[in-house]
């Protein structure tokens, strides 16, 4: 029945809801601003040496990046489903969805390790040139975000093992979910900038 998946956020102006808490949004918007600076610097530097950047970019396996993007997007879907499950008191389903999201993240992590190993064994490191400095630095910082995200997801899953979730618990889950989606959205832009730019 469709009502099992109630739309979580009310659109009635009187009942607008901050997902999680204000604090996480200060962090999210701040982090997005930091990454915006990264994005700007990368594109500006690319514009100064497009041929060099394009040549370096050509060593990437775009499939790695595309699969990774799909993994994080799917992880986000699982996290949304987990939050909806929590709201209808189906903690067991929430735990399953959080585990599935964690697996998506883990595969992304594994993929990244394989990709880095592939680069390094071909002599491509952050010291190679500007493109690879940006590539390793930005995907590396993002990977740190992802690892934190995995710890968060595991914590949320443990939380959902409790027989009863308080309102504070639910807010914590929303905070964790919001953080997870940040990890996803940052990668979406990184994929476009690092793997797909041409001309």
């Amino acid at each position, binding site marked *: 029945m469709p009502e099992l*998946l109630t739309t*979580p*956020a009310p659109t009635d102006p009187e009942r607008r*809801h901050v997902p999680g808490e204000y604090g996480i949004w200060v962090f999210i*918007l701040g982090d997005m601003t930091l990454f*915006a600076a990264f994005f700007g610097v990368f594109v500006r530097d690319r514009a100064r040496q497009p041929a060099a950047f394009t040549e370096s970019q050509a060593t990437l396996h775009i499939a790695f990046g595309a699969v990774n993007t799909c993994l994080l997007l799917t992880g986000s*879907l699982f996290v949304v489903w987990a939050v909806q499950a929590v709201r209808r008191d189906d903690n067991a389903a929430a735990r399953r969805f959080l585990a599935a999201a964690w697996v998506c993240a883990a595969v992304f992590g594994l993929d990244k390790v394989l990709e880095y190993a592939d680069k390094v064994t071909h002599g491509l490191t952050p010291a190679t040139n500007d493109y690879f400095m940006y590539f390793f630095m930005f995907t590396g910082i993002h990977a740190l975000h992802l690892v934190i995200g995995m710890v968060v997801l595991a914590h949320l899953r443990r939380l959902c093992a409790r027989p009863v979730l308080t309102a504070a618990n639910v807010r914590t889950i929303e905070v964790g979910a919001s953080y997870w989606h940040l990890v996803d*959205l940052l990668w979406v832009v990184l994929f*476009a900038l690092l793997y797909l*730019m041409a001309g």
Partner: protein
Amino acid sequence: MRVYLRHPVTVVWALLMVATVVSWLLGTHHGTSARAATVLVLVIAFVKVQLVGGHFMELRGAPRPLKALFTGWVVVVCAVVTGLFLAG
């Protein structure tokens, strides 16, 4: 299961996956119009971010100032990144 498949969030996810594949194709098969393909790739990326924010992060139901800050970031960063690319 059908309920999950028809739910708006699942539809958004499917759109995001399609957009990812489209971007992948644009990034690898841009032919002579590499600059146009890249602009499209960049815009698609930020549209995806907006979708993640609106539907996954539940900003559609959030207080307007928060929505505005997020959407503002999307619009400004997209414009700056695309502008820097085109200016090069």
